[in-house]
């Protein structure tokens, strides 16, 4: 490049720079004016901003405030006595939350194929289902998402004529549950409790039950810093902290109590630097972590991850003796967009069969609330070691436990903001 060209370019660059800068200033001024005219709020809006109402204006169900979910004219249950479709049945599920053998049994029985697609979060699943981007027949929501699925008409009302196992096999409390009176849209799939798991060999003499407040076990674990884990789940961690602080409800929307719980967890993070994850079933057996907030089913699964030479007897689990600990109830639902609604009903019935439930448990580790899946039977069948017997629930514990139920939109945002601060600490 000649020096003259270079000079010209330099001049051009200068003018360009000037013009760009001027343009940017004008643009910013215009944008500033435009943004000034924009709304500036982070508040939730609509009916679900009310504390006792969820999506679609459906009241938020609680054990003492049962809800009958609404039916809609444009979303009706299928008629009785229809022939099953030819399939393939499309199931939308969490990873490893269905025994492949159970699927094969269904395929053999009905001469159809079953295809399972997995999701990593229920929001992701709802986004795909509501956009009708995918046409699945069966999904596995939790009760916290039920309002949204019903209001969005993503799930189809059930015709219980196809699901006789609901009445004959399912524990009565969950055959007509408080979150879906009359089982209009769902049947129960798996139940679980959230408790404290630990390695007895690494922490000799330790037992949360010996503490005045057992949940304090995490706050007092400064001596095993780096060996402590919490579930990477806002409802679980903040819910447990609320119980530690004396709350009797893990579904509350009280900003003060949530802020206090958040501050307490932040204190715990400073003291113990816990790891957040949901792979306690692997971390405890490997010895990477010694103390973990755990899902009961994960601990059952942990027995299959024990290293050679380490007995499963070193694993321990605690859930409150007052039976008011956190419990979870997952559901089975038939999806409105599916092409095989009859087959989907038959699949739900299949999963509620007693023998099927035991076979399913042997793979996924999570208990189904059906006859034959009580603690005595599962321990006797050798599926759960005696030292982990308390990972299994009986019907009365599901009645008295604290279920993670749906929250209003504003309360959900409140919980999420608290969780965000904890995870960014």
């Amino acid at each position, binding site marked *: *490049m000649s020096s003259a060209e*270079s000079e010209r370019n330099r001049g051009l660059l200068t003018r360009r720079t000037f013009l760009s800068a001027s343009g940017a200033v004008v643009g910013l001024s215009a944008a500033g004016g*435009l*943004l000034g*005219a*924009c*709304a*500036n*709020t*982070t*508040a*939730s*809006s*609509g*009916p*679900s901003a009310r504390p006792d109402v*969820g*999506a*679609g204006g459906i009241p938020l169900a609680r054990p003492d405030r049962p809800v009958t979910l609404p039916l809609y004219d444009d979303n009706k249950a299928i008629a009785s006595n229809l022939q099953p479709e030819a399939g393939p049945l499309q199931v939308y599920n969490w990873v490893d939350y269905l025994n492949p053998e159970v699927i094969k049994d269904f395929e053999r029985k009905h001469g159809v194929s079953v295809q399972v697609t997995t999701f*990593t*979060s*229920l*929001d*992701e699943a*709802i*986004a795909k289902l*509501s956009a009708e981007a995918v046409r699945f027949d069966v999904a596995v929501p939790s009760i916290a998402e039920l309002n*949204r699925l019903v*209001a*969005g008409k*993503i799930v189809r009302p059930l015709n219980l004529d196809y699901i006789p196992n609901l009445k004959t096999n399912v524990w009565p409390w969950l055959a007509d549950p408080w979150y879906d009176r009359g089982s209009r849209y769902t049947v129960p799939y798996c139940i679980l409790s959230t408790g404290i798991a630990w390695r007895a060999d690494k922490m000799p003499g330790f037992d949360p039950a010996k503490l005045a407040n057992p949940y304090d076990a995490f706050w007092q674990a400064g001596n095993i*810093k*780096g*060996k402590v884990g919490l579930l*990477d789940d806002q409802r679980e961690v903040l819910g447990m902290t609320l119980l530690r602080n004396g709350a009797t409800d893990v579904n509350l929307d009280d900003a003060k109590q949530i802020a206090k719980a958040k501050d307490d967890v932040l204190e715990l*993070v400073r003291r113990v*630097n*816990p*790891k*957040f*994850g949901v792979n306690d079933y692997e971390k405890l057996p*490997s*010895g*990477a972590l010694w103390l973990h907030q755990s899902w009961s089913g994960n601990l059952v699964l942990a027995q299959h991850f024990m290293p050679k030479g380490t007995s499963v007897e070193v694993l321990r689990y605690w859930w409150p003796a007052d039976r008011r600990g956190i419990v979870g109830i997952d559901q089975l639902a038939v999806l409105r967009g599916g092409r095989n609604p009859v087959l989907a009903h038959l699949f739900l019935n299949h999963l509620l069969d007693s023998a099927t439930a035991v076979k399913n448990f042997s793979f996924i580790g999570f208990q189904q609330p059906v006859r034959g899946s009580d603690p005595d039977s599962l321990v006797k069948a050798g599926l759960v070691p005696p030292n982990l017997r308390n990972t299994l629930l009986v019907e009365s514990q599901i009645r008295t436990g604290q279920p993670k139920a749906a929250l209003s*939109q504003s309360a*959900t*945002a409140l919980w*999420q*903001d608290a*969780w*965000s*601060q*904890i*995870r*960014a*600490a």
Partner: protein
Amino acid sequence: MYPRWYWRAFALPGVLWLCLFVVVPTYALVAVATGRIDELFQPLPAWLPGTWNIGFLNKAFSGALPGGEYWATIRNTLVYVVAALALCWVIGYPVAYYIARHAGRTKSLLLVLLVLPFWVSYLMRMLAWVGLLSPDGYANQALQAVGIAHPPDWLAGQPLSVIAALAYGYIPFFILPLCAGLDRIDRSLLDAARDLGAAPVGVFLHVTLPLSRPSMLAGSALVALPMFGDFYTNDLISGASRTSMLGNQVNLYLLGGPQKNLGASLVIVLMAILLVAMAYYVYATARESTRAT
């Protein structure tokens, strides 16, 4: 003589690409960030600027300032990316230099070997690190073998582990362009420097290093950009709050809950940070090319 539009038409595919995959998604991001969330917790983008709600953008940008809600994650992101980038330079430069200058006939083989681990998925490679760094893993066994009785627990929320994993995960993307850049340096310039009396170190510092700066910048941009948005390396290697990066916060808000507009706003914060970094890159490369001419 071709009409004036003829040559300009060649830019059309690029312009279309830019519109489809850069401009439209960026506008969609702004629309989500300034939009509402429906009852199913799904975003309702505000496509018209007049309907924008900038509350979440405000919250994200004010939270990104020192002392703000998201400052800790932004600080972590900046520190980890800069440290991982420095590691890439320290480890990657000698490797690229050796391959470009001294590998001879084995150059192709070495390049293939360099890329070979990338046939394995990123997730699997990170999981392999979990095995290596576990309390009784090979790293600690090696440390114990040399007399360190109590080696650190690398997976217990250690920033060092996250930085090392980030560097490991992205380093070939740094080495490859650098290798190509070093390979392209005119050998006669090096000979000239030597003829003029420069010692080997002087040749490297005054000729090779300045001439390889554009490739270093390109390699740095290639590795830094994905590192800034990374969240799963930290999830797998640490999982602790104290090593959270901005990508983890974005993931938290976008994966679930009724504040996906806040998640989108945090993505815009990340883009603003990257814009500063990219502006420096453009400025530096422009300066290099001016120098070269």
